């Protein structure tokens, strides 16, 4: 998180934290383990009412934010959600809301945004990997699979990337479009749901978001937003786990001394603190770069993912080690955090994929 927030941001962060503490304790996460949706729609709607789905949408379309760039506000919510592992499709709903708000038609605005903004509807972002599309008069014939789509089985709307004449195009489909087959998946996180989506459908021109063949920059921007939110969530989770571990080491005695007095453990906590601060720093930089549309946004986002992904799992694992045996029990919350950061590490591009993008920037050549 930024070390200095505006008054409005500070108020938003505090409200969010209070709301999450009341409505989304980790006991609630555990209770949702066997719920198909993985989140509570009533709680989600309350979160939406607090602003959780509207910050990337302009005021004119029912959204609005506190600072110059809605993303700078939204990462505060993402980080708070990470701290408690709150359930809910924050990334896909916001990414799709942003996309529709900025590139959608008026009809799409009216049909889709109100539900996303009040939390009554959910959208899934099917990512940059495209399905095939061929033209059939005014219509597009889509076919292909979108793998491991977050909230794919919970979504009312699917934002799909398709290649039309080899050019990236985005299409918004109702989830119940004939020819759309959604297969829910099992996964590592207790409540974050993914699905495979097979598409074999014909859609009219009204489904296209923006202009046909013109969606490249928008898709890249969506990927950036997804990564920024994910990194903020991960850093929030790391922050909380670190805090829990500090408390644990201070309370616990071994050989007549508090665990926190053992130098080997002290030095590991110092290293963990350093890594935590470095993750905050690069996550913040990525959020800022994307919010401000900096020319180096792609590079900074890639760097954030490359750095935070493995350091998050490493830090949580080290904190588990510092907790001793209790850390690997089901009863303790640590594994919930580990599941979340492990899943985040591997979604919206693995660290290795993002590193490869950095290498392309650096060397000017492909592998």
């Amino acid at each position, binding site marked *: 998180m930024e070390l200095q927030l505006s008054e409005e941001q500070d108020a938003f962060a505090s409200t969010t934290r209070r709301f999450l503490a009341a409505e989304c304790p980790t006991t609630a996460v555990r209770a949702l383990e066997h719920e198909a949706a993985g989140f509570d729609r009533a709680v989600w709607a309350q979160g939406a009412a607090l602003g959780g789905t509207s910050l990337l949408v302009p005021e004119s379309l029912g959204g609005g934010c506190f600072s110059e760039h809605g993303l700078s506000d939204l990462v505060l919510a993402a980080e708070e959600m990470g701290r408690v592992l709150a359930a809910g499709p924050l990334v896909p709903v916001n990414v799709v809301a942003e996309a529709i708000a900025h590139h959608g038609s008026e009809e799409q605005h009216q049909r889709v945004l109100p539900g996303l903004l009040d939390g009554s509807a959910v959208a899934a972002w099917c990512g940059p990997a495209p399905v095939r599309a061929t033209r059939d008069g005014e219509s597009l014939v889509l076919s292909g699979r979108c793998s491991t789509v977050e909230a794919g089985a919970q979504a009312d709307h699917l934002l799909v990337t398709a290649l039309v004449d080899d050019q990236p195009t985005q299409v918004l489909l109702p989830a119940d479009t004939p020819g759309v087959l959604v297969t829910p998946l099992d996964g*590592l996180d207790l409540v974050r749901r993914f699905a495979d989506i097979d598409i074999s459908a014909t859609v009219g021109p009204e489904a296209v978001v923006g202009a046909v063949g013109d969606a490249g920059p928008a898709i890249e921007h969506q990927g950036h937003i997804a990564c920024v939110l994910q990194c903020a969530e991960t850093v929030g989770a790391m922050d909380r786990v670190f805090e829990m571990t500090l408390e644990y080491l201070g309370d*616990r*005695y071994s*050989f007549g001394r508090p665990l926190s007095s053992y130098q080997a453990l002290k030095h590991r906590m110092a290293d963990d603190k350093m890594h935590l601060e470095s993750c905050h720093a690069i996550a913040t930089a990525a959020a800022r770069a994307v919010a401000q549309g900096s020319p180096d946004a792609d590079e900074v986002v890639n760097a954030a993912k490359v750095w935070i992904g493995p350091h998050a799992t490493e830090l949580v694992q080290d904190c588990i080690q510092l907790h*001793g045996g209790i850390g690997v029990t089901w*009863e303790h919350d640590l594994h919930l955090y580990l599941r979340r950061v492990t899943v985040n590490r591997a979604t919206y591009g693995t660290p290795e994929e993002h590193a490869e993008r950095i290498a392309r920037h650096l060397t000017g050549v492909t592998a």
Partner: protein
Amino acid sequence: MIETRATDDMEPVEDFRARARAFLEATMPPLGDGWNDRSDERRDRERELQALLWQGGFAGICFPKEYGGLGLSQEHQRAFTAESTPYDMPFSLNVPTLGILAATLVEFGTHDQKLRYLPGILRGEELWVQFLSEPSGGSDLAGCLTRADRDGDVFMLNGSKIWSSAAYASDYAMCLARTNWDVPKHRGLTMFIMKIHQPGVTVEQIRQVDGTLEFCQEFFDDVQIPASDVVGEIDDGWTVASRLLVHERLAVGGGSPYTSGASFGHDGSGTDTTILDAAQEAGTTRDPHVRQLLAEAHVRQMVGGQLVKRVTEGMASGALPPPAGSVIKLFGATNVMRRSEIGLEIAGAGVVAWPADSPGVAGDLGRASLSRQGVSLGGGSNEIQRNIIRERLLGRPREAAADRDIPYRDVRRGGSAS
């Protein structure tokens, strides 16, 4: 020290090997997929396998003859183990029952205790477990709060133990309890043989992150133990516990004379094959970066194997002192951590989600990574192993302890006893 060399009055090792080969071929089932199961069914199966060894006259090769063993040397045991690799064996009886608890009993038990307990163990009828760790104690095993109060010929135990393996399915435990609160902590402990399934003992299984229910917590409520079941001397239980821990490091490392059959260990990060399979599943075996990772994972296993060999041979010959076992333990644990990391990297996006109930290799690697620290905690944490290496293997200053040389009742014991 534990090494026993073949002597002239023993059956020649090669003769023994030939007999063992014939017996194994005739008797033992081939090694299948299930050997690494931690299920109750598998445990029962292993009791049966142990009974087969007993009936064939091949149980307890290095155990004393008078208590049901064969009284042979570690060379005989190694020959048997080498011959046994193609066969299914009672692997999990090795640790903790045979390699740790029976070994400790051989060293400290009275003649009567050994007569009474060892044959049952060797027949596969009795599983043993150690009750050392406590919920509030962490690595500080001597900071034991479970109390044993004497009443005539009986001790009354109250307290709780934790992290015992499969206590719910086991028969006996060695349990460390405090019998004297007025002396410094190491000097007021006593080791008891405790029948697990008896009044006053409640065993709860602990659900681990990987879904297993193997580890247990025990609660003692006026549990009665006859004084004849004290192991070693009263108030000298720390001596017994310390040697028990040496046996543990040896047995876990595969260097115990009392274990039989190959020691596979339980590698939380999956075998080489798993990692390689994940690369194959992802279609990345030709990627130079993935290849470096595959090689590293494989090299780590190879180095680990050579290190176990070096250290266990060194300990057996006396070239290395017992604390060297910690080197193996620490290496194994760090190996699991690094290999888990390699597994995650190779599995890539495959760790996130999978078709219902079929996680595939990548999903398996992801799930295994969740409990990877287990190996770095169980049987003495990495931190404890490092202390042992530095203080006892390299012989340098002990860590300052605030509880040394003061009556244990005066020691600060901190906040979060659970």
